[in-house]
């Protein structure tokens, strides 16, 4: 188990992490998710031992590692740019840590061969120079180099960000399989919400050095604890007070029209004008003012009185689609509206 107890990280006068309290369970795939510059990498680097907290302590399996050198923490790391040693071959890169640890030559051979097989690197690739490999292969070498040391914890700092979309998707699966296979506690940093939702057991959403919410992917997505999380993950419509009021007027009496309200775009149904709303749903008339085709769905820009709203309709062959200018009815379940207390929103703005 990894814990951050009241950890503060400063860079000169700048406080990057004000007061972090976090627990990561053994064997889980834990993701630090947040926008660029939010402090997620700093949190990871503090665990790696590259950043020393100015306050608080970090423990791994109840051992205080706050001031321990990085190589004494039993941690492996895959860097964003892989950090492969360009003057060495693939084999030398993977064997580097074992040689430093003075592991016997035959054991080095065996362990390198084993891990290479696990990450699907061929024998021919092992003797190549780093620059002769593709991005995906370099990624595998970086994983192998970290894994061959059999660390208790694996840190992954945006390891997929340099790969193209298709390869990124493949590597997601492979990384998760490796993690499951070895059962290593993994701490993963990303700004890509899809990646986080797809791979993680739990996600911590980071904003300005603070943890906004920790929870499973579904929990974080469907029950975003704060306005920031709601905005950062997925696409949402911010409902203007006037629209919220219409929902209240139409029967959603549990809503408070004065609070910031959000509705995820996939929770908005678009139907021909005059379609009746099912029981418990609310309908509002609107006009299609914009339309985009995305292959698996269409996204619509809708004008509701003086406000605008987005909606997505799947391209599944069953759903009805509309042209720009069409009169439609917007139907939604008011229970899907997410509301956040006003003071918090003001604090964020401040």
């Amino acid at each position, binding site marked *: 188990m990894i814990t951050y107890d009241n950890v503060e990280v400063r860079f000169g006068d700048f406080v990057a992490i004000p007061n972090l309290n976090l627990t990561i369970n053994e064997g889980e795939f834990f993701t630090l998710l947040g926008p660029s510059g939010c402090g997620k990498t700093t949190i990871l680097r503090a665990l*790696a*031992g*590259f950043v020393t907290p100015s306050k608080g302590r970090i423990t791994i399996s109840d051992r205080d590692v706050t001031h321990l*050198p*990085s*190589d004494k923490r039993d*941690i*492996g*790391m895959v*860097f*964003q*740019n892989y*950090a*492969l*040693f*360009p*003057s060495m071959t693939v084999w030398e890169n993977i064997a*580097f*840590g074992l040689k*430093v*640890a003075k592991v016997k030559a035959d054991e080095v051979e065996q362990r390198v061969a084993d891990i290479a097989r696990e990450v699907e690197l061929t024998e021919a690739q092992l003797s190549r*120079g780093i*620059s002769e490999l593709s991005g995906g292969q370099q990624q595998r070498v970086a994983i192998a*180099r970290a894994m061959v*040391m059999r660390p208790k914890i694996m840190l992954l700092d945006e390891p997929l960000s340099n790969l193209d979309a298709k390869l990124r998707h493949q590597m997601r699966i492979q990384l998760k399989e490796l993690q499951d296979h070895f059962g290593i506690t993994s701490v993963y940093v990303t700004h890509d919400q899809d990646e986080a939702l797809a791979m993680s057991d739990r996600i911590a959403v980071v904003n300005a050095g603070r943890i906004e919410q920790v929870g499973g992917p579904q929990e974080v997505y469907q029950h975003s604890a704060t306005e920031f999380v709601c905005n950062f993950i997925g696409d949402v419509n911010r409902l203007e007070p006037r629209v919220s009021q219409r929902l209240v007027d139409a029967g959603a009496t549990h809503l408070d029209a004065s609070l910031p309200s959000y509705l995820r775009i996939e929770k908005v149904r678009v139907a021909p004008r005059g379609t009746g709303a099912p029981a418990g749903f609310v309908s509002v008339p609107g006009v299609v003012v914009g339309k985009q085709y995305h292959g698996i769905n269409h996204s619509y820009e809708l004008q509701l009185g003086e406000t605008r709203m987005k909606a997505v309709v799947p391209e599944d062959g069953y759903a009805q689609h509309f042209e720009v200018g069409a009169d439609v009815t917007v139907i939604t379940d008011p229970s899907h509206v997410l509301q956040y207390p006003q003071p918090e929103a003001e604090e964020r703005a401040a």
Partner: protein
Amino acid sequence: MRGEVGKMLRSPMVLIVGLVTAWFIVAFLIVPNVELLQSVFAPKEGLSAWEKLARSRPAQRSLVNSLILAVVLSITVNAVGVFIVLVTRYYDIKGARFLWLGYATTLVYGGIVLVSGYKFLYGPNGMLTSALTTIVPVLDREWFSGAAAVIFVMTFATTGNHLLFLTSSMAKVDYQTVEAAQQMGASDGTILWRIVLPVLKPTLFAITILTFLGGLGALAAPQILGGRDFQTIAPMILTFANAPGSRDLAASLALILAAVTMLLLLVLNRLERGGTYFSVSKVPVALVKQKINNPVANVVVHVLAYLLFLIYVLPPALIVIFSFTNAESIAFARLSLDAFTLDNYITVLTNPAASWPFVVSVGYSAAAAGIVIVFILFVARIISRYRNRITATVEYLLHIPWVMPGVMMALGLIIAYDHANPLVGGWVLTGTVVILGLAYVIGKVPFTLRMLKAAFTGINQSLEEAASMLGASQFYTFRRVLLPLVLPAAAAITALNFNSMLDDYDMAVFLAHPFYQPLGIFIKNATEGETQGDTTAITFVYAVVLMVISGLTMYLVYGRTASGKKRRIRRCRIIVDTAKQEATS
């Protein structure tokens, strides 16, 4: 900050390197300059140096001449330099590659060798002078001397910076900006003036300042070609320094030179800070050569380009040709088939007395280049690894030789170590073999530091972090991970340093031991008075050998393309280019 410094000082490597560096800075960068200042501002007896300067007309005239030379060169060198870069890199000129090779001759021969080459062509016994006197018998055979001769030679001698740095800047012009201007109806001239030249501005500023400083501190050209009427500061400093009673006067002139140098470097820094000159495009497109649409202008530019080519190529070509001829042919600058011989080369290769200056130069250059690279490898590593006030101060101090003209540094060393000094174990260094080598090391420290620091900085920090996470110690990481990465750059820097010291004259003329005179002095002596024939022949052989070595060095550092096992060279080239860009921008 205190924690960082404490962490740094706990490393044994840092402590050892720190002590050596501190001694080096105090003994060779601070004390010589302080002693020089003392000799000017606190004279032991008689008139102060400033009073002597006020009474010395030759000294005052040398100051004015230096200023004239610097100003005129700033104009002429830029005019020629920009022109040759435009005709080789920007305009579509027939035979541009061939022209570039001609213009690039100054990269493989320069300094005293170049001046002697020009003197051989244009001097009293020169081929051109002989040809001219047959047409105009009354022509004074000494016509090629004075201010005009110095400016002419130095103009063509110092366009190397344009070829290296301006060409590199030209490559950064985003062709899409040119196309955009063309689409908006801009003329060729407008595009050149408003789009292309502004991108080159920072490099042009830098080159102009370097040219100005070169003119101000010029030694070989004014000394050999200036005659009585056009002596500048550096030759005057040399004259005064050779008379012990006038060393303070030499020191005061050197101080003026240093003050102007520092002032100009400050101006350069200020100029560089303002403005955005680089392309902001994320996908810049390589420049496509432009056709000169006006046929008359096209012909004029072609003619001028080839005329310049002749001016550049003739002196080195004649040196190469005449190095294979006998003494008589050289003395009268006449060529005939039966004059060709390999004797000069055989003499240099087999006669120990003839090859001695070459051996001395190679010895000094190799030793100094080796010492400086090993020393600075450690210093640069520490400076790039630990960023705090101590390392920043050390870095600034190690740049002192960059702002001090060479002659001032040489003079400072002479004055500081002409008596037993505890800083160097109580030895007297002035007049010994050591002092010239020391000066070479000192002189190469700033360049080497800047380049190596850039090479270290260019290495992604995560490599070091990855190594440390895998358990590697700092020294192991340095040896196994970092050193292999900077080694190609270090090799290239060593080659460039070695090259630039091989034909040095400016330091050698002040500091060389009488029995260990390097090539620069030998070549200079060969250009004096009526010395022609055998000595000149041997000088030509030296010049050819120097050109070959320089050419080889330039080829290894800049010229090789990447393929197969040459990848290391490409990496070194990338690192050196990065370092070069950092140095100029």
